[in-house]
């Protein structure tokens, strides 16, 4: 059951957070475009990388969180978990679409082709298709409880498919430059200024994602309340003994 008094206004702390993102974003852009040094091989083209890689990382985190909130919804059955899953899913779709655009912008001048069938690019394209499927399923189910459960199941299956898709695409053919940062933290082969710029951009991308997700979840709660009220009104307008069409 939703709280009867959902606030319609964006709370002050959320507004402050949104305003604070503007200078942070400008700083991240300054660091990437001006402050950080040129790359030995790629020259100024390396500057695309800061925006591209940070957005890609956050996109994958967003898919994982969508599945996580989905799993929480299956476990506890609280509507707010479903609302958070959708909010995160929409951002995941946006970020992975941006990753593809960024990747194509980056690979045209560096690898001389828009599309490379490279593992990471293929994986991201599949992720977009999978997330679109997630929203198609949501749009087709009217009952909020069933919609939440089925879409949570889809999100979990999607998140589990990513490592397999990655492996398959990696073995299929890969042209992508090898990761400069190993996941265990060893073997960083980047200039410290570059690494700082990349990490700063990633943090800002994460804050942008989180802001939009929190705000979208706020709207989602209002939507859920509206949906519940509408269902109640429809139920009340049916004379007793009448048949409710669902």
């Amino acid at each position, binding site marked *: 059951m939703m709280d009867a008094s959902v606030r319609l206004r964006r709370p002050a702390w959320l507004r402050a957070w949104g305003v604070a993102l503007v200078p942070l974003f400008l700083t991240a852009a300054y660091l990437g475009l001006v402050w950080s040094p040129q790359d030995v091989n790629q020259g100024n083209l390396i500057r695309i990388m800061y925006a591209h890689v940070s957005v890609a990382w956050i996109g994958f985190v967003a898919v994982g969180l969508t599945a996580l909130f989905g799993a929480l919804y299956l476990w506890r059955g609280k509507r707010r978990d479903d609302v958070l899953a959708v909010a995160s899913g929409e951002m995941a779709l946006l970020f992975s679409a941006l990753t593809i655009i960024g990747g194509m912008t980056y690979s045209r001048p560096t690898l001389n082709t828009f599309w490379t069938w490279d593992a990471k690019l293929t994986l991201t394209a599949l992720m977009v*298709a999978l997330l679109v499927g997630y929203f198609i*399923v949501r749009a087709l189910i009217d009952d909020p409880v069933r919609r939440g*459960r*089925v879409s949570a*199941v889809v999100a979990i*299956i999607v998140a*589990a498919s990513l490592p397999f898709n990655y492996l398959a695409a990696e073995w299929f053919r890969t042209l992508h430059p090898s990761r400069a940062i190993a996941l265990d933290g060893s073997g960083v082969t980047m200039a410290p200024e570059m690494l700082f710029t990349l990490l700063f951009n990633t943090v800002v991308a994460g804050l942008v994602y989180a802001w939009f997700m929190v705000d979208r979840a706020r709207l989602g709660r209002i939507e859920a309340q509206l949906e519940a009220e509408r269902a109640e009104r429809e139920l009340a307008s049916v004379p007793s003994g009448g048949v409710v069409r669902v």
Partner: protein
Amino acid sequence: MNDLLAVLWVARKDLLHETRSKATTVATLFFSAVTLVVLAFAIGQDEALLRGAATGALWVALAFAGVISAAQSYQADLEDGAFDHLLTTPVPRAAVYLGKLLANWLFMLLLGLLMLPVTFVLYGAAWPAAWPWLLATLALGPLGFALIAVFYAGLTANLRARESLLPVLMFPIVVPILLASVRASGALVGSDDLALAQGWLRLLVGFDLVYAVLCTAIYHFVVEE
């Protein structure tokens, strides 16, 4: 023990229904054969090109047929409300899933075995020396495919536009299965490269294991009323 029996009974029910109606058999058999012929036309006259495309064409034909088979296995149940009866029986939902999976897998296995010689004749490919591994691919690939297909067919069975929805939802998930199956059988048929094929087979086994556990665990969220 009883649950295992329930799995076998659900599978038996589906297979029995199929042997009597033969609806899916006729549709998928001709559909996959036609797909093989059409793909051969699309590739053209070049014999080397045809030989190289043989395993790819086989898996495309099997994948499309698998979608039909999985959707059909719920269609027959839903028509007379039999599926609701099935769900009210005191067996776990997972047993229903595994039973349908077993029936679909056996069906695709048979279809694969029938289409294999057709492909070799139409595309002029040479029978590989390590043919037992080809059969292993033919068993593990459709298993992974059926795992996802039966799961998603249950999910879409009650939805509008299910015919077009099922492939849209499931194909991005089974990309690793298709890739691994095509590459493994291609390595065997084209170049007799056993080591390469075994690498891809390992991916198939991993996929099958992970999704067998995952899908069985969360299937009851998909079909509950």
